[in-house]
């Protein structure tokens, strides 16, 4: 009887935990972005505004990134409107919200595309949301601009002719890491990865690249997602005779791994600590100086020395008081891709804008030109950076870019599973 009660209560706990994650909110607010000027030149346009619906997560752990996505869009829109709009079309942001759940996001996207006339969607955060929306886009007659969802399926089995991605995908980032391996000093590597598809695919790609580069992998181990105590994994790493560590642990797991590794003095024994999605600007303050010298894939080089990037950094900093990092930067590029396509199409009609994507070429924040592949992937370079002391950076840290790998290397061909 007692056990039955406890079992019932345990089940109630688990079910309720799942339900608690499922909030709902799709209240929208229209924001005809003021920017520097509200004057519309309307030189070539028919006065139709370019309406962009944003559906960022506004609750939960991803809310902070959702807010930064909106900031990226806002800077792009403000710049465009200050110059009289995009091809004469004033740009309007229609802000909705999600809890990060696909069902909520789809509801919000339908409302934006049908009731509010926003046929261009952005600000959606996670890959499951992007994948779910991809299936609806053609029916909605809408185009989606993904700047954060990195899942490879989004340009594979889940691709859509109406979906475009400005952020580099997971496979592209792993390929960039692999391409940089030769230049890193360690010869004998240990791999600590999350027991999840990302961890396994990254470990496999790294192992293959290490073999190709004449280096060896002496230990590969996986920790379940949401591991809080890495003690046993770290003790095994300490016993393995490696002079390099490749770590695929992210979010709270990554923070716990780095903190506990430092307690064990684990990182002192390595010539190279290379992370995949482990350390990034938003975590610099949390992780502190102990990550100085770590290498990691880097989504965006804030110091890229070209006028296009410098103008973006200056405007972003003026509006938000801090330097941009990869989330607002990739989002800004999503906006630029849309604006370039609208200009090329000479229209805000989604079908014409979609057609204009073929052969589209525009400046990238890296200083090179970016094109959009037939799978909707923006062909942008991937970086590997080293964490260094940087005055004014978050936590006094910043990335120094050590390798830049072009998209022709990281994404050489379209996945045959993408039939768009």
């Amino acid at each position: 009887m007692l056990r039955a009660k406890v079992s019932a209560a345990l089940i109630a706990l688990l079910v309720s935990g799942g339900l608690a994650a499922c909030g709902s909110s799709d209240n929208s607010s229209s924001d005809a972005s003021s920017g520097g000027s509200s004057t519309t030149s309307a030189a070539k346009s028919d006065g139709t505004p370019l309406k962009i619906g944003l559906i960022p997560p506004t609750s939960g752990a991803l809310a902070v990134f959702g807010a930064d996505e909106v900031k990226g869009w806002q800077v792009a829109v403000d710049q465009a409107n200050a110059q009289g709009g995009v091809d004469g079309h004033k740009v309007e942001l229609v802000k909705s919200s999600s809890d990060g759940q696909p069902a909520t996001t789809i509801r919000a996207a339908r409302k934006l595309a049908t009731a509010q006339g926003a046929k261009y969607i952005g600000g959606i955060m996670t890959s499951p949301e992007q994948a779910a929306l991809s299936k609806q886009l053609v029916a909605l007659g809408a185009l989606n601009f993904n700047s954060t969802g990195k899942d490879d399926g989004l340009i594979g089995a889940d691709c859509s002719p109406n979906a475009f991605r400005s952020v580099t995908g997971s496979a592209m980032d792993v390929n960039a890491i692999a391409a940089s391996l030769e230049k890193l000093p360690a010869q004998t590597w240990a791999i600590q990865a999350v027991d999840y598809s990302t961890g396994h695919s990254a470990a496999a790609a790294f192992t293959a690249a290490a073999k190709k580069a004449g280096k060896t992998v002496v230990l590969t181990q996986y920790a379940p997602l949401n591991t809080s105590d890495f003690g046993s994994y770290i003790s095994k790493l300490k016993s393995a005779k490696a002079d390099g560590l490749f770590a695929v642990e992210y979010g709270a797991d990554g923070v716990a791994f780095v903190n506990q590794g430092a307690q064990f003095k684990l990182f002192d024994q390595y010539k190279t600590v290379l992370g995949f999605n482990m350390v990034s600007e938003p975590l610099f303050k949390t992780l502190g100086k102990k990550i100085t010298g770590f290498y990691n894939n880097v989504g965006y080089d804030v110091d890229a020395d070209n006028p296009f990037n410098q103008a973006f950094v200056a405007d972003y900093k003026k509006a938000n008081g801090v330097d941009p990092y990869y989330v607002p930067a990739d989002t800004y590029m999503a906006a630029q891709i849309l604006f370039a396509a609208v200009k090329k199409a000479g229209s805000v009609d989604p079908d014409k804008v979609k057609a204009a994507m073929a052969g589209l070429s525009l400046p990238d924040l890296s200083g090179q030109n970016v094109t959009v592949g037939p799978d909707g992937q923006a062909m942008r370079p991937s970086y590997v950076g080293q964490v260094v002391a940087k005055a004014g950076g978050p936590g006094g840290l910043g990335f120094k870019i050590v390798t830049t790998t072009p998209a022709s290397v990281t994404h050489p061909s379209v996945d045959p599973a993408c039939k768009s």
Partner: protein
Amino acid sequence: MNLAQVLNGLALGALLMILSSGLALIYGLRGVMNFSHGALYMLGAYFAYEATNQGLSFWLALIVAPLGLAIVGAALELGFFRRLQRRSHIEVGLVTFGIALVINRVIVLIWGDDTHPVSAPKAVDGTTNVFGTDYPTYRLLIIVVALAMAAALVLWLRNSRVGLHIRAASHDTETSGILGINVDRVSLVVVCLGGALAGLAGTLAAPYFAVSPGMGQSILITVLIVVVVGGIGSVGGAMAAALLLGLVQIMGNVWLPSAAVLVPYALLIVVLLWRPTGIAGKRV
């Protein structure tokens, strides 16, 4: 399995021991499975984060946070457990689950969704050589604190008048009341102590794991398993089960990494098949 891994098991078990002792005490007396215990532990960790963030020493936080959680425990006893003592245990359990959700949300509203680091004090931030193995001193501190807490708690329960009353009330509340024991007062002491132990575990966990909003929920399931394996309501059983689970979990991580996540559940099934009343049975 080398010495470092044994110490890893003891450190994890030690933390679970502190946390599960409080949960077992409350269950033993009130008969309520307190689902807010994980949230109390998380609140303790956030108190420690806030205290150190405000410039207080970690050692002071180790006292302040449990005291703060003892006050929260008193509020739970006076506001909920005492008023709901005649309701069914499932209903009270669900109320505690609701309390956990409220505490979670309040924490996010105050401290945000981010993960926050708490540094171990300088004196215990390095490593100590244990029979030729360099091991983090902070983890050794957790083991020492947990063992000291366990010894003090057992001595207090066995030798003090209040301890006698707690043991009596845990066996039979009504008879204890008839014999003159003020069960409400005993219950207040126990729930305060349970809260303080959750606060102590949370404070110790802050530099161990880092502080984040999901930390309470993720450890709660493990602690519930510890309490059931130990023998529901038995403090000594919970302590033994915590150390056992810590060691078995680490053995799983080392020898069966792909199935390590299932270890607590496997242990639960094995122990309940072997001894349906848990390791300690009905003893307090």
